[in-house]
């Protein structure tokens, strides 16, 4: 096979190129610059790089094309997720400035890895090929494994890193094995190619194909922290540096859902009937377990971790439905979720001190008296996470449930809303008022 890369194709990946270059510059500056200024420069580079990449991503809106022999695709779906990843990167960089100083994290690596992680996300959501998805996923994951352990001398952080690495590697193996099985049955790695093959006459649903699909669900289920592949989440979220927790809870989840959606809504779309039931169960289990467990947490980071598990469940509701509207509702939900979650984590960071993060819920008692503005913001973030109108979380939930109702998944919707009530019971008394006020 003669591989020809048309030169102009690079125009479509300018955001990725910018991110790569800024990550490398950040590393070099930190390595060769002086200790103080080098770190600051690295953060500046991360900020500027993400900002520039975001601007270029805007220009890609409404561009639809496939490049690099169909390995990579540019469409609004991917561009949206790229934008989201870059927004996450910007926000996390912003909230890292003081945090990184306070905790004494090595800056050059920190910002460079942050950017590499974003690069992985961007690749993942735009790939049209199992191999590129895998590469993106690994670039992202390996950066995060390291980032989780960057709190030097902190046992929880090291534990988080190791745990995430071991389980993550395991899950990646599942994903890879699933892809291999699909390849074994179809001989195709191209996502759209698989869809075409599935629709063609000579496709029959073999057990091998089904197992492949199930294993891919396991792999993505791990990255999106869906039950029963969620075990790592609370420990890792709690142990990791808080800025990285925010990054994981939003960026990784969004990117993983992006790739998950692309694979299932494109390659396996004709088989909706076969996988939607599997996901139905996962969705119900995820939101129920996430919400119930979150109820009894008395550590804010752990609570947010379980709440993020529950959110994955809501997103899966729309996922199960599987039509155009549900895809849009997932995108909206992720967008709203990103802002409210990063907001909540930002407040956790602001209230922390070096070494002790003060994430016990009791340390939030009387926050309104000490920092009225912070308490107000925290209340708004938590209310939004609980899905109370007129906040963004409500609209997200509104779209997700309307997608379910439209497709007549009434029971799924009912279970979903009853879970929302439980969320209310969790977020209000525990944090918003019993303690914040």
């Amino acid at each position, binding site marked *: 096979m003669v591989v020809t890369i048309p030169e102009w194709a690079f125009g479509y990946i300018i955001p990725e190129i910018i991110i790569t270059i800024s990550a490398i510059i950040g590393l070099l500056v930190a390595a060769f610059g002086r200790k103080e200024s080098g770190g600051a420069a690295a953060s500046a580079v991360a900020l500027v790089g993400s900002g520039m990449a975001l601007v270029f991503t805007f220009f890609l809106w409404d561009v639809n094309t496939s490049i690099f022999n169909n390995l990579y695709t540019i469409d609004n779906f991917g561009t949206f997720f790229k934008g989201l990843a870059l927004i996450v990167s910007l926000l996390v960089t912003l909230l890292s400035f003081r945090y990184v100083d306070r905790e004494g994290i090595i800056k050059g690596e920190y910002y460079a890895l942050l950017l590499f992680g974003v690069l992985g996300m961007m690749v993942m959501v735009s790939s049209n090929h199992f191999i590129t998805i895998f590469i993106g996923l690994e670039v992202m994951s390996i950066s995060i494994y390291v980032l989780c352990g960057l709190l030097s001398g902190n046992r929880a952080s090291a534990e988080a890193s190791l745990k995430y690495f071991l389980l993550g590697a395991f899950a990646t193996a599942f994903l890879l094995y699933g892809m291999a099985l699909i390849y074994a049955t179809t001989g195709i790695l191209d996502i759209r190619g698989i869809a075409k093959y599935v629709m063609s006459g000579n496709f029959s649903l073999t057990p091998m194909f089904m197992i492949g699909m199930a294993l891919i669900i396991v792999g993505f289920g791990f990255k999106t922290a869906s039950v029963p592949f969620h075990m790592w989440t609370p420990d890792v979220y709690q142990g990791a540096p808080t800025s990285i927790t925010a990054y994981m809870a939003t960026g990784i989840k969004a990117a993983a859902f992006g790739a998950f959606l692309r694979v299932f809504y494109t390659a396996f779309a004709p088989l909706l009937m076969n996988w939607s039931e599997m996901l139905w169960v996962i969705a119900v289990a995820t939101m129920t377990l996430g919400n119930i467990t979150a109820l009894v947490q008395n550590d804010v980071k752990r609570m947010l971790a379980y709440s993020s598990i529950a959110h994955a469940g809501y997103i899966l509701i729309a996922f199960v439905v599987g039509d155009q509207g549900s895809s849009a509702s997932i995108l909206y939900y992720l967008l709203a979720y990103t802002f409210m979650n990063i907001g909540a984590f930002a407040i956790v960071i602001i209230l922390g001190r070096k070494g002790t993060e003060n994430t016990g819920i009791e340390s939030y008692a009387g926050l309104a008296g000490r920092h009225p503005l912070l308490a107000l913001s925290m209340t708004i973030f938590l209310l939004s996470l609980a899905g109370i109108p007129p906040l963004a979380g409500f609209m997200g939930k*509104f779209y997700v449930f309307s997608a379910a*109702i439209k497709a007549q998944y*009434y029971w799924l*919707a009912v279970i979903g809303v009853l879970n*929302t*009530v439980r969320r209310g*019971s969790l977020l209000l008394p525990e944090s918003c*008022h019993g303690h914040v006020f």
Partner: protein
Amino acid sequence: MNQTFPLLSTLIFFPLAGALLLLLVPRRHALFIKASVLIWTLLEFALSLPLFYRFNEKTAAMQFVELKEWYPEWGISYLLGIDGISMLLIMLTTFITILCILCSWESIKDKIKEYYVSFLLLETAMIGALCALDLVLFYIFWELMLIPMYLLIGVWGGPNRIYAAVKFFLFTMAGSVLMLLAIMALYFHFGGETGVYTFNVFDLYKAEIPVVKQYWLFAAFAFSFAIKVPMFPFHTWLPDAHTEAPTAGSVILAGVLLKMGVYGFIRFAMPLFPAAVVAATPLISWLAIIGIIYGAVMCIMQTDLKRLIAYSSVSHLGYVMLGIFALNMQGFEGGIYQMLNHGVSTGGLFLIVGMIYERRHTRMIADFGGLSKIMPRLAAFFMIVTLSSIALPGTNGFVGEFLILLGTFRSNMLYGVLATTGVILGAVYMLWMFQRVMFGKITKEENTRLTDLTKRETVILCSIVLFVFLMGLYPGPFLKKMDASATGYLKYMQAKTSVYKAAENVPPGRPADVK
């Protein structure tokens, strides 16, 4: 009615603007905060007066309508409008809010700014919910009512406040999220049927929904509203919420928030699902009767004044629901009138109990006795409000209860007879309570040192008593305002339900000609 000034929007967002401005005031100026909030709510009341005077009582159509595109892709619009029913409830809201601000004057000493901000937010949400004619808009205001009320109970409430606040929140939210699903199901059904996707309630009234689907959707709506009313057996959150809430919280809860449930039935659940109304009328009527009698019996046994009044609310709201579901002119108007009465008289009772509590820091009936000798002025007001709650002729309660019972007798004799027993029980528990608190010997030493009403409190209670007699002796102006709306509403319901009633009565073997 041609008018360009967006009166309803102004009414809705005026308190919100006040709340935002209040956030800028430094918290040490307590008196300034209180005074400005009082003036703000008085202005709001003044703003709402034109609704009453400029209201065209000859038409059943929505008035002061405002329509703006909000989210056209989804058919969500910013649609406001009021008829005779919601107009009176809005007037009640703006009036009761002033009393709430006044009665919190001394009793709230902690986090004053946040307290009044919550109250103003609550007023915005309540008026918004009463004006909204788009289901999504309504839902947003409906849920928005929860947060300030939750905070009022949970932050400024009694010792067991967190439990009560969470219970209140969970009960109401459980109902409302199911309603949200029903709203969506209705939306997609109507859209699928006609191709027009809209949340506009008047378009949705035209939907032809299969009977079984109507049952489900009505059940979801009714569940949400029945919790808010609260109807037996969904009433268990109410005594807790009332007992723990600060006085003003109880007043606004009893005065306005409970009416939201009934209003939801009238505006949404009933006209949208007429077939289900036909089927559910016996069930709801029986639940209402059980609520009337059960609430009254529970009242007799209460030892806590606030709990007693809370259970009396369950009983009174049972009357309201019974009247509304009688679906005739007397019952319907009586039900709405009784909502206003209940706001005034139960609100008044909570105010009086609050005043006693501020002095004595207990609400146990056993701790009182002989108060009328020490606080003669309070005793007089208490007597009048108690009698109004019992529905003595000449007070407002009588008009409402009489109309309801009349309507109920017309629609179903048995219901009427059973409901009337509640009137007797009502007299029993209220008078007994009054006797134990106000008359007899002064048994407790502390009670001899209590002071009588201050000027501020006298003003509050005078305004309550004024309405007790005004609405009792001269109900004409109030009833006249809702006449056209009630007639139009009942005519509409008649037309809608008769189709289904006819279908029910078709002898077997003959095909029903529904449509």
